[in-house]
Every structure is written in structure tokens, then in C-alpha cells.
């Protein structure tokens, strides 16, 4: 049987100078079902091509058959680690189309849960990043803290991961009794633990060796590829939609004091006691992206504290969700929000009935993962999980 007909042979004309390796889709460190085809010369990666689509579930097509309120669970399952932010993005764009304003209390509640979910998402990013690099313990510490957040969310809406809580018009239910105290207590418990994370990862010599100078993404390339979120800010570009976005979104954050974590004029915001930047770290490398996320956790904690107070002080109700047969005026609306992993956009085109004509989700991770092939060129094989982990991708969002 010639080699062509032998079904066991999958590679013909095998080159002996380069090796074609397949990383994934089942792989302990590709953060989901991502397939990376690597061309390597020994340990040096000459090229990496990401192949996606293993988690495509036709969410956008399904959105053409469901009322906006019914489509909310599909947004949950996009970036399933930050469901609240996905829900928020979708709810806001529907409300923008309808020009429906949510009462003040509802706005503060939305900020509260969205920022809490940002903390949870960054904790997962941090923990799994340590796991990729061989540090098993911070993963469990991060999940221990995240467990408390998930418990809080379970008290709020009954779900631990895919909440479907923020819906167009308001939220599905108000906070239960005593929840504000529980949340405040959680923040108190989280604060000293963040220092542990810094000691185990951010300031750890081996971690710095693995991440500093690795996968350097120049600011211009980041902008060209459409990278957003911590990936963009880690390369030194000052952009955060909570401050710079559309008024329909930034009005949510009116009155909140928080700093955008980006390196300006050579240093990061000084409002807290952050660990120092090591000398080996180059702006735009994996370490800086990781650092931005760690600092954003602290900023989000600040925002949550402010939101707790504002929510308690606000009067009224949290908004009424729109009905399923609510007729959507014909038109279109697009809104991008600052999700934990980047700028998540939802585009809604309606034709006058209760069912949208087209829904489109602009995934933040989609643009972020596209830069993988550039970053992985010339690095060592062991750097590939470091780079992919630092981009913090979730395939649910990329594939939708």
C-alpha cells in the first residue's frame, strides 16, 4: 500500500527541519477549544495559526428567532466567565434602541454586579495563567475567592455562572436581604488575599522570567488588530470604554471614582499600593497584561464599594424587564461596553416586530486571539501557553 493510500499516515512529504505540531483543541492550556497549529524548528516556534469554531453554537442566527428578553441566556454563554457583563451589553443596546432609561437604583445595581463579575473573571484569568505556567496553587486560591463571588451571585439570581440577570428594561429581581453586608464582607476578605497573589505570581522571580519580555505587543499593532481591554492597556494605549465610551454606557459610571489601569508616562496609577514593575518587563509583554488585570481587580473592588453605597442610598425600583411581545421600533443600534476581556459590542437591527431582524455580537476575544500568530512568531514552545494565557481568551465568546 503506497503511503498515499495508507489511512494511518496523515502527513506526506514530512519535512525534517520543521515540525508541525497541533496544540488542541483538547489541550490543558488553550483556555477552551482552541486549536493552534504550530510550525516549530526544535523548540522555536516559527508560526502559529489559531483555528477556531469548535464552540460555534449559532447564537446570532438563533437571535433572529427570539425576542430580546429570550436571547439573554445566549449572551450568558458567550463569555461565560463574565455573564453579567455580557447581559449588560445586550440589555443596554436594546434599551438604547428603545430609548428606555432604567431607574437610578437599577443602574447602580448593574454596575455593582458587572464589576463584581469583572473581579471573578480576572481571578479566573489569573489562576489559569498560573496553571499554564506550572504554578498550581494560585489557581485554587483564586477559585476560593471566586467561590464567594459565585455564592453572592447565587443569592442574587439563583445561578452561579450563567446569570441572565440583567435583562432589557432592568433586572430579573432585586437583591435579597443582607446581601449588601455579605458583599461588603467579601470585599474585606479579598483585600489581603490580593497581596498573596502578588507574592505568588506578580512578584515571583520565576513568573517574571517566564512572562517579562515574552509576547511583546506594540501599541500600534494592538490598535491595528483591534485588540481591546487589558491587552490594549497592557501595551500602553489609554482606552477604557467606562470613561471613553458612548454616553449611553458611560452614564452608568457617572459619579464613580476609579482609575484606568494603563502605564502613562512610565508609571501606573498610584492610588493604591501596587507591587513594583520589574526591570525586565517590557511594555506590551505578558507580564504587563497580567499586571493590568491584577490592578483592575483592585479598581473594581473600589467601584463595588461605591456602588454598594450608591445602591443603598438610591430610591425607587430597579426597573421592569420588557415584555416578550414588546414591539421593537424599526432601526438599528450598536453599543460597545467594557467587558473584562475587552470591548464587547452588540449590534441590533430591528424591523418593527418583537423579534429582531439581526443580532450581532462583536467579540473582544476574537480580535485579541487574532494577534496570536504575530506574537508567537519566534518564541519558544513553552512561551505559547504564556502568550495565549495572557490574552485571556474565552472560546465561547470567540465562536459564539
Amino acid at each position: 500500500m503506497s503511503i498515499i493510500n495508507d489511512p494511518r499516515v496523515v502527513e506526506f512529504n514530512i519535512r525534517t527541519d520543521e515540525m508541525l505540531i497541533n496544540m488542541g483543541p483538547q489541550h490543558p492550556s488553550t483556555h477552551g477549544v482552541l486549536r493552534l497549529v504550530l510550525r516549530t524548528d526544535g523548540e522555536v516556534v516559527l508560526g502559529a495559526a489559531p483555528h477556531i469554531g469548535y464552540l460555534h453554537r449559532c447564537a446570532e442566527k438563533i437571535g433572529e428567532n427570539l425576542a430580546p428578553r429570550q436571547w439573554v441566556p445566549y449572551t450568558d454563554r458567550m463569555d461565560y466567565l463574565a455573564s453579567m457583563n455580557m447581559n449588560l451589553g445586550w440589555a443596554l443596546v436594546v434599551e438604547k434602541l428603545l430609548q428606555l432609561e432604567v431607574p437610578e437604583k437599577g443602574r447602580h445595581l448593574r454596575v455593582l454586579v458587572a464589576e463584581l463579575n469583572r473581579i471573578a473573571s480576572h481571578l479566573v484569568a489569573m489562576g489559569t495563567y498560573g496553571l499554564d505556567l506550572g504554578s498550581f496553587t494560585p489557581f485554587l486560591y483564586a477559585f476560593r475567592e471566586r467561590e464567594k463571588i459565585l455564592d453572592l451571585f447565587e443569592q442574587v439570581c439563583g445561578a452561579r455562572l450563567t446569570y441572565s440577570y440583567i435583562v432589557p428594561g432592568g433586572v430579573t429581581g432585586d437583591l435579597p436581604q443582607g446581601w449588601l453586608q455579605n458583599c461588603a464582607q467579601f470585599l474585606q476578605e479579598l483585600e489581603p488575599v490580593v497581596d498573596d497573589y502578588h507574592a505568588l505570581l506578580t512578584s515571583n522571580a520565576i513568573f517574571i522570567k517566564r512572562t517579562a519580555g515574552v509576547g511583546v505587543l506594540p501599541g500600534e499593532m494592538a490598535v491595528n488588530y483591534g485588540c481591546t481591554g487589558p491587552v490594549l492597556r497592557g501595551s500602553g494605549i489609554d482606552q477604557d470604554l467606562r470613561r471613553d465610551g458612548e454616553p449611553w454606557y458611560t452614564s452608568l459610571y457617572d459619579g464613580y471614582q476609579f482609575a484606568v489601569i494603563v502605564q502613562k508616562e512610565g508609571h501606573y496609577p498610584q492610588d493604591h499600593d501596587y507591587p513594583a514593575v520589574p526591570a525586565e518587563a517590557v511594555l506590551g509583554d505578558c507580564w504587563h497584561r497580567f499586571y493590568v488585570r491584577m490592578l483592575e481587580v483592585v479598581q473594581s473592588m473600589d467601584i463595588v464599594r461605591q456602588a454598594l453605597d450608591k445602591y443603598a442610598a438610591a430610591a425607587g425600583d430597579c426597573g421592569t424587564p420588557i415584555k416578550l411581545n414588546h414591539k421593537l421600533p424599526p432601526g438599528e443600534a450598536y453599543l460597545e461596553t467594557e467587558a473584562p476581556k475587552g470591548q464587547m459590542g452588540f449590534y441590533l437591527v430591528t424591523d418593527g416586530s418583537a423579534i429582531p431582524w439581526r443580532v450581532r455580537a462583536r467579540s473582544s476575544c476574537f480580535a485579541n486571539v487574532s494577534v496570536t500568530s504575530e506574537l508567537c512568531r519566534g518564541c519558544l514552545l513553552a512561551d505559547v501557553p504564556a502568550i495565549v494565557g495572557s490574552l485571556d481568551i474565552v472560546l465561547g465568546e470567540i465562536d459564539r
Partner: protein
Amino acid sequence: MAEFLVHTLSLPAPLAYLLAALIHCGFILGLVAAGAVVFIWAERKVSGRIQDRLGPTRTGGKFGWLQSPADGIKVLAKEDLIPRAADRLLFRAAPYVSFSSSFTAYLALPFADGWVAFDTNVAVFFILAVLGLEVFGVILAGYASGSKWSLFGAMREAAQVVSYEVPLGICVVIPVLLTGTMNLTTIANMQAGWCSNWLIFHDPFTFAVFWIYATCALASVNRAPFDLAEAESELVAGFMTEYSGMRWSLFFMAEYSSMLLVSCLAVILFFGGWHGPIPVFDWLGWAYPGGASSWQLTGFLANLAGCVNFITKAVIGVTVMLWIRWTLPRLRIDQVMTMCLKYCVPLAAICFIGALWWQVAGWWSPNHWLPLRPDGPGGMRETWVVAPEAACGEVARRLPWADSAPPHGAARRTLPGCGLAGPPAGWRTGSPAAARGGVQ
């Protein structure tokens, strides 16, 4: 033991030796297997506690102590999968190569005074040489698996282990230098007495060498932060990816037994072996005096306690290895090699020269503080084996120049300023087994 069998049970000599060898192997296999079982359980509990969780708690009632046997039973019952692209013979042979080399090294390791399967004057050399064979199993496994990921893991491991054998060897040579012998039993016996006699406290260079040895030992047995051959996040399981069932568990056991081995070696070379921090049995006078030839209960108990002491220290070493694994991230292969070639080797070499200098110049060391015997000086470290005095006759007879004058520049036999011309009468030289006359 063979002697015992010959004389007491009147067995023919070859059969007696064979039986003795089998019994020794049985003991060591028992130790290795039991060690692996205990360490796997300990790893899961220790890692659990470090990660703020409990680890196995249900298997076996309390503390999950039956988890390892349960895993063993599960592993035995698994399907024996050999990938289609694998080289069948090499794939099957590889785990045995690894495991047998790891196990063989224990043959030369003494657990107490005279309790050693293979008492040899080149024990250190033997152990290092046999440990180096383990990498063959890994390379075979990686190549024979027929998978590119396994190949990657094997190549990384080959480079790493072979490179780290160099600084490991230098680190090990320093206690050999200080004691003048490669016989592990002698090295341990020379550290008898208070813990200040331990070689790690001999001079600052030896102290530093211990830490370099610890790093090189970690790299040698592929433990974190040097475990990129089994890097889960990159290579699934490296060279072990295609292995399942008993074959995999042999690799696993080989890893744990290597960990215990380098830990035991460190204990003998640096921490006094079976001699405790406090010389309890010296006070009781239970230890075998030099030249004793008959079995005594007190001596046996002293040796037993020494063995327990030794294993305790080795287990502490392994626990520290576990601790480090669950704390630190992993180094990349080029960083591992940089660490070896640019840091470990030069540092080890500098410490070698430093320790040598300290020895030759005869500077004070904590080993001199509390002498081994009330009447004698502490820390007699010089080359007994060259001394042709009558008191050391047994060993001297084995040496080529024993009947003539020692070669030029014969090393001093005692430390300067201690006031003795030679070892005190009756002091043990060479191996106690030799002193007792014959292989035990």
C-alpha cells in the same frame, strides 16, 4: 546475611548468596513501593493543604490513606493501550528501564550501620552512575510513543537531566573530598555524634553546596520548578502522554523513588545519615563497637533507630520537594539550561575550591566543636584509606600501596593541632561490615 545463611542454615554458598540477594531486593522493593505509595498520598494531602483544600479524605476511612492502593488497583485494571504509531518493543521496554535504574541505585544506599545491600567503596559513584541511566527510559518512551509531544518531552528531559548531572556530580564530590572516601557508610559514620558534626556545617562552602545540590537534585528528578518534561500545560504529560495503566504507574513510581533516592543521598552526604542530631545511642553505648563480630540486640536496636532516623530525614527532604512543587511556577527549558550552565556549574566549582581550601588550610569548623568521642578530636576527615597504620589495617590491606610507603604528599591523617598522631585505637575505619569480618 549470606554468611549467616551459610553458617547457621548450612546452605551451599551460591544458594545462600542468591537468597541473600533476593531478600535484599525484596526489602528494597518493599521500601521503594511503600515509599511511592506513601509519597503519592502525601503529595495529594500536602498539595491539598497548600491549596487550601483537603485532599483525599474518604478512601480508607480517615485521611484517605488507602487512596494510593485504590489508584494502584484502578491503574492495574486499565486497558493496555499502545498507540498504532508506536514502536512496540521500545514502548514496552521503556518503563522498565526507568524503574529498574531507579531501583538499582538503592542497592548501594546504606540505611543504617551495615544495613546496605551492596557494600562498596564506590557507593557514591555507583549511585550517580545508575541514576544517570534513568534518562534512557525517558528517551525511549518519548521516541517510541510515536507522538511529537512525547518526543518533545523526552528531548527536553534528556537535555536537562544529562546537563544537571555535571553540577550534581561536583556537589556530591565535595563530601567525598571532605571525608576521603566514597563509601557511603563511612561518610555517614564520620558524622556521628552531635549535629554539629554533620558535613553541611563543615564550612560555608559545603553549606552552599547543599543548596546547589538540592537544586540539581530537583532538576535531576524532574520535579518542579524543573518539571517541563512532564509539563502538563504544554505537553499534556510529556513523554508519558501515551502511557496508561501499569506502564504509566511504573514511570510514576520511578519518579517518586528517584526523589526519595536523592533525598537519602543528601541525608547521608550532608545530614549525618542515620546519626541523629543528638547522639542518644552513643550515650547508651548501644552501637556496635569497632571489631564486633556477633549480633547484639542493643546494636540491632541502635541500627533500627538509626534507620528510622534516616528515613525520617529523607522524608522531610521529600516533603520539602513536594512543597516547592506546589509553590513555584515552571522554568522554561532555556532558562533551565542557563541555570545549570551559567549558575550551578560555576557555583559548584567555586564551592569545590572553597571547601578544598578550607580543608587544606585547616580552618575551624563546627565539626570540631563537639568531638565524636570524649577522648578524641571531632571531625577526623582525612584520608584514612591511605594510612597504613595497624589500627587501620583492614582497609589498608585492600589498597595497592598499602604495603609500601604512601605516595608523595600523603595527606595528613588527622587535623592539625588536635594532638593525635592517628586515629584512636578501636576507631572504625572503612565499613563496619569489613570490621566485623566479611559481608553481612
